[in-house]
Each structure stands twice: as C-alpha cells, then as structure tokens.
C-alpha cells in the first residue's frame, strides 16, 4: 500500500488496483467544519482530474477531483451520514470513495508524502 497526493489536496491510498480517495488534513482545515458531501455513483467512470465529489463547509464548497482514471466501486455512506468525519479523521474514517484504477501509471505524477507536506505548507 502507498499513499499519493494531488495538487488539489486529495489523497489516494493504493492497494493493488483499487485506490481509496479522500481529502487531506490541510484541505479539511482550510474548509472548516464540513456539513455536506456529494458522493459519486458507484459504477460511474471518471477521467483523471474530473470533479467526482463535492465537499461543503458552512463557508465554502469545493470539488473533489479524481486522482486517476477509473471506475467508482464503493462510496463511504458513513461520511454521507456524518460529513464531520472529513474533519475528525480525514485520512481514515473520512474517506470519500474507492476507485478501480484503469491505468495505475496515472499515479506516477502525483506527490509522495514528503513532497505534499512541503507543497501544503507553501499553500498558506
């Protein structure tokens, strides 16, 4: 398993050809208290960088972009029921959806944790 990060502050945790996607701690902190998520339909196919989900706090709404080409195979119903999981456990219980990767090489261009940490620090 390995975790990669996008410039739009999503993470993807890769296990074989399945990636679990969520928003980073930095993203949830910037948004503030999350009150709503709109999750993709299971079975729908997206291209890399397509807007696949939406996350909203009281003050702002943001798209969650697909980190790689693929098909959504599962969404986090617990997050739909309790959007605050995106704040309290963004890298764990606050995951958004799982995607079956069409082309694992899509992930090569994404950041590793060290690169992302310094990228997010500069984003302030």
């Amino acid at each position, binding site marked *: 398993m390995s975790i990669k990060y996008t410039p739009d502050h999503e993470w993807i945790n890769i296990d074989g050809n399945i990636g679990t996607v969520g928003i980073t701690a930095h993203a949830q902190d910037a948004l*503030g*208290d999350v009150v709503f998520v709109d999750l993709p339909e299971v079975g729908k196919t997206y291209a890399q960088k397509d807007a696949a989900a939406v996350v909203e706090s009281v003050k702002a709404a943001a798209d969650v972009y697909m980190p790689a080409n693929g098909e959504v195979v599962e969404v986090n119903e617990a997050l739909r029921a309790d959007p605050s999981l995106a704040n309290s456990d963004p890298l764990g219980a606050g995951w958004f959806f799982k995607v079956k990767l069409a082309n694992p090489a899509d992930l090569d261009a994404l950041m590793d944790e060290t690169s992302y940490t310094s990228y997010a620090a500069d984003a302030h």
Partner: protein
Amino acid sequence: MTTALESLLKTPLNDLHVSLGARMVPFAGYSMPVQYPAGLMFEHKHTRTAAGLFDVSHMGQLRLVGPDAGAALESLIPVDVIDLPVGKQRYGLLLNDEGGIIDDLMFVNRGSDIFVIVNGACKAGDIAHIQAKIGTRCKVIPMPERALLALQGPLAVTALSRLAPGVEKLVFMTGGNFTIQAGNQRIDVFLTRSGYTGEDGFEISVLDSQAQALAQALLAQPEVKPIGLGARNSLRLEAGLPLYGNDIDTTTTPVEASLQWAMQKVRRAGGARAGGFPGAAKILAQLEGGTGAAARKRVGLLALERIPVREHIELQDLNGQHIGEVTSGLLGPTIDQPIAMGYVPTALAALGTRINAIVRGKPVPMEVVAMPFVPTNYFRG
C-alpha cells in the same frame, strides 16, 4: 485569493486577532478574521447560546451635525429621521435616484448629532454621496479615529453590565454614552443595544487607541469568545438580515428587497412627509401595487433536501423556467437545514410556494418561508 494581506488596511485589533490564532482574510479592503481556531460552527453556536465578540471596525462611522441634520438625512433615505427621539436608533437605506440601494445603515439621534454607521466596503462612496447631497445643510464628519466592536448573544448583557453597569437598562435599538472598566482603565464609549446576528447584544464605538484594551476586557469575561466574519455571515443569514452587495445593491429597491418595514408611515403615500427621498415615485408606486408593483421580491428559502444552496445558484419554477438566483445561502448551523435568500417574481413570492434550485445540474426543491429562519432574541424591555 491573491490580494496580499500586507497591502490591506488593519483594524486596531489586528495584533489581537493574530495572537488569538485567527485566520485572516481580505474583506472590504481590510485584513479581517474569518474564524478563530474554535471554528465557524463553534463560534456560531457560542454566539447563539452565550456571547461573541466581533471586530467590525472596518465599518464606517460618521456624524451629522447641525439643526437641519435630521431633515437633511431624511432627504436621502425613505425613513423617518425627524421624529426619532433622542437616544433611539433606526435602520435606514441610502437610495439613488432610481430607488436603488446605495447602502444600508444604522443611525442614532444623539441630540447633539446624528451618529451613522455604514458598511465598510461602501463607506468612502457613502461619505462622498452624503457630503455632495447634504454637505451644505449640515456638517458631515467622518470618524476614522474610532473602532467598532459588537458583543452579541443572550449573555452579552451579563458580560457587559459587569464592566459597565447600566447597559442592562437599554432596550433594543437605543443607545447612550457609557464608561467601561477595562482592567485599570476607564474607557468612554458610545454604545447601542443592537447588532446584526438576531441576538440581543451591543455595538460599541470606541477610540482606536482604546479598542484593544476594551476587547481584552470583554474577552476576559467567561461568557465571551472571539467570533470571525464567517459566523457573522451565518448568524445574519439565519436572522433573515440582508448583506449589502449580496442580497441588496443599487439594482434593488427597498420594496423589491422586502425591506418596506423600514419605511415608516410618515414617509409613505398619505403620510405627513410622504416621499421626498430619491426614487420616491418608483418606490411609492411599488408599495401601492397594481401596475407599478415590484416585479420581484427578496424571499427566504428553505431547501427540502439536506443540500446546501449557495449564492448565484439558479432558481427555476416547477416548469423549469429561470426565475432568479440565490443571493446568499448556506446550511444554517442553528436551524441545521439549508437556508437561502434570493429574488423571485412577485407571483412566486407567497409563503409556501415551491420552486427549485439547480445545484450541480440537479433540481433541489425549496419552499418560500418567512424570515427570520431562527427566531430573533432582541431585548425590548
């Protein structure tokens, strides 16, 4: 947001905001706290249940001085200024010649002057407008040397009366001069029992040089926490109060904006001083109804699904026809439902009317409801 924070104006409380861990953002040309570490949701709920301290020093303060000041101000707004008793405060709307709203404001008859508070983003234009229109009838004196703090919430009176005994006797929309004990300092302020959250509370005008000591004395009270602009916005929206630039602007009249309650009978048709304000013919015709009626109205909207409906989202009737757009909207933290304001054709403005908001291409059913969305908690004595 690319505006460099360094190029922005700072309020006298800037260092305090930073030391409290505020996230600072550009707003109305100032660097302002949007939220503190506790977060918008906490800050909103704390203000509804205890007391919140807001820095609103970006807003404009000015005085109108002279025997003709009341009549002069009346010539600019569709509101009764002349008969306002000393010590009382009123809401007003500065109008252009088409009856459009240049700004909304609060004013107090202080006997020796009329004290006016206007929006931060509008203040330079407002002062120039007032000066140009009535500057020969009264003195128009901007007060850039003063800060403005708002203390809002059901326990605001408990906290403030500890430092300034007597404030508890004020009722909603009245004001006076008080001395606040802030540590070993005695600070002279002018304050009113009013605000923009729907809660009981006070707005306190204080010299810049004493603002930080005053804020620290208030924050030392156990009921009081600092509150940012984010919660100020969600609180005012739940209270049904319009935000200038979002919900009202120069293209909306007071009648279209559903603010006709701010026009006293004396300025309406048949009143002793009917009309006599910019755009009067159009506005009085809109009040009359019939052929001159307002074509659209600002309404409150409640989403029937738990999906936030934000500003600029399109509104459609049930046949899919475009009817307007949302001007403010969010998930109200107290009501815990998505609420919004927007303009709809007058025929669709009746309470209970169903319309759709188009969110990411999908219709979200909404109902026209009465405002405020959350009951107000003003102290009327």
